[in-house]
C-alpha cells in the first residue's frame, strides 16, 4: 500500500502523543475501537474553564498508519477550537486532508467518533461537577 506524504509525516512525527489526567474535571477522554478489530484510539481534550477553548489535546492509537495519522491530525485540529467548533470536525475533512484511500475511511470515522466521545465525556463531567458544586455555591450566597 502506498501512503500519502501527509500520512507518512504524521506516522513518522506524530503530534500530541500522550495522556492527560483523565480524572480532572476539565479533561474529556474518548476511547473507541477494539483490539480484535485492529484499532483502538484514545483521544483526550483539556478545556479552559473560562474561555471554553480546547487548550490541549493528546492521543494514543493502536492501529495502522492511517489510524495513527487520523488521530494525530485530529489533536492538531482540536487545539484552539471551542467544544462546539470541535463537534463540527467531520471524518470527510480528515479523509481529504490525509488523502485516505477508500479502505482506510474507517480510520477517519474512528477519529471523528473519538472526538465526539471525548467531548461527551467532558460534558458529562461538567454537569456532574456543577451539580456537585451547587450546595457550596448556595452557602456562599447566603453568607
Amino acid at each position, binding site marked *: *500500500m502506498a*501512503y500519502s506524504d501527509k500520512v507518512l509525516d504524521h*506516522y513518522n512525527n*506524530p503530534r500530541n*502523543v500522550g*495522556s492527560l489526567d483523565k480524572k480532572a474535571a476539565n479533561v474529556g477522554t474518548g*476511547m*473507541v*475501537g*477494539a*483490539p*480484535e*478489530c*485492529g*484499532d*483502538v*484510539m*484514545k483521544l483526550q481534550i483539556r478545556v479552559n474553564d473560562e474561555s471554553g477553548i480546547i487548550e490541549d489535546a493528546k492521543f*494514543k*492509537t*493502536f*492501529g*495502522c*498508519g492511517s*489510524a*495513527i495519522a487520523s488521530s494525530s491530525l485530529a489533536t492538531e485540529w482540536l487545539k484552539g477550537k471551542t467544544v462546539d467548533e470541535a463537534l463540527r470536525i467531520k471524518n470527510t475533512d480528515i479523509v481529504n486532508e490525509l488523502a485516505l484511500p477508500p*479502505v482506510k475511511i*474507517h480510520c477517519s*470515522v*474512528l477519529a471523528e*467518533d473519538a472526538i465526539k*466521545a471525548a467531548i461527551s465525556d467532558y460534558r458529562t463531567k461538567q454537569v456532574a461537577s456543577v451539580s456537585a458544586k451547587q450546595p457550596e455555591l448556595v452557602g456562599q450566597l447566603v453568607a
Partner: protein
Amino acid sequence: MKLPIYLDNHATTRMDPRVLDAMLPYFTELYGNAASRNHEFGWAAEVAVDKARKQIADLIGATPKEIIFTSGATESNNLAIKGVAEMYAEKGNHIITAATEHKAVLDTCKKLEKGGCRVTYLPLKADGLIDLDMLRESITDKTILVTIMYANNEIGVIQPIAEIGKICRERGVLFHTDAVQAAGKIPVDVNKDNIDIMSITGHKLYGPKGVGALYVRRKGPRVQITAQMDGGGHERGMRSGTLNVPGIVGLGEACELARKEMPEESKRMAFLRDKLRAKLEAGLDEVFINGSMEHRLPGNLNMSFLYVEGESLLMGINDVAVSSGSACTSATLEPSYVLKALGLGDDLAHSSIRFGIGRFSTEEEIDYVADKLVDVVSKLRELSPLYEMVKEGIDLSTVQWAAH
C-alpha cells in the same frame, strides 16, 4: 549491506544464479519441444527434462517416472485433490484436510463440496500440529483422501507427516501433502514418510516461478488420478501441455542444489532465526511466538508484538520485506486464518509478523532487522493505548470496548 532486506522467503525466493545459468541455454539454442521424438532439438529437450525429473526424484526419494510437471503448486494441489476425487468417486466421496492449509487446497476442497464431496477440516492444536487421534477418528469407509501440508507457510510448523502417512496406509486411504515449504528445506522422503501424492513448486526453493511438480506414487499403492485438462496426453496422461523446458531445467537444478546444500544451509538458517528471536526477546517485553518452536522450519519465525498493530509495524520497517497476519495487510481485510485456527485472538493475529529467512540472508541483515524492530516496536508502544493500560495493570479482557 544492501537495503531493502528480503525476509519474506515463504512468499517466494530469489532465484539462485546457478539455476539461471542452467536454464539459459533452453531459452535460446536448445528450444526444442520435449515431445518431438524425431529430431535433435526434441531429443536435447527430452534429455534435459529427464535429467530434471531425476534431480527432483532424488531430492524426495522418488523415482523419475513418478514426477509429473505442472505450472506450480496451485495446479499440483488442484490436480491431486480433484484428480483423486474423480478417479476414486466409486470408492467414496470423503476427504480430510486441515484448517491451516493453503488456499489452493482449501478452496479446491470447497469446490468439491459443491459437487457432492464431504470434507472434514481438522482443527489444529494450539501449537499448530494436528491431533493424530482426531485424524484416526475422522476416517470412515467413505474416505478416499487425506491432504495435510508438510510445513505451514505462515508459522513454519512441520506436521508429523510419517505418522499421518502410516495411519492412511493402514486404513487404505491415499495421502497427499503440499510440501511446497518443506521440500528443499528439510529432509523429505516419500517412502519413509508414507506419502502417495506430493506437491512442490520451483519458486520456493530458489528456482523459477510458474513451474512445479506433482509426485504420484507408482508402486505400493499405484495411485491414479484423473487429468484435469484435456490435450496431448503428456506426463503419462495426467497433465497435457507442452513442457516448460527452461522452467523444468531450473526446478531440477534448484532441487539438486537444495539436496546438496541442505545440511549446511538448514543449520545456518536455524542459527540466524534463533539469533533474531533472541535479540527480539532481549529487547522487548510482551512478545509471543506463534506455533511450535520445536517442529518448525529452520528459516521461519512468526511472532506477535503485543499491543502494536501489524501494518503500522510494517510501515516503520519499510526497508525490510516481511509480512503480517494483520487484517490491514491482507486482501480480504481479515486477520490470518492460520493464526486464528491456533486459537489466537484476533488481537494477536493483528500484531503478528512472519519472518522468512533464506539462502541469501546474512547475519548482518538479521542484526539490522532485530535492532530496527526493537526500535520501532518500542516507539509504537509509546503510542499504544493498550500498552499503557496493560502497564497500569488493567486486564484488557475485562474492558468493555466500544467496538466499531
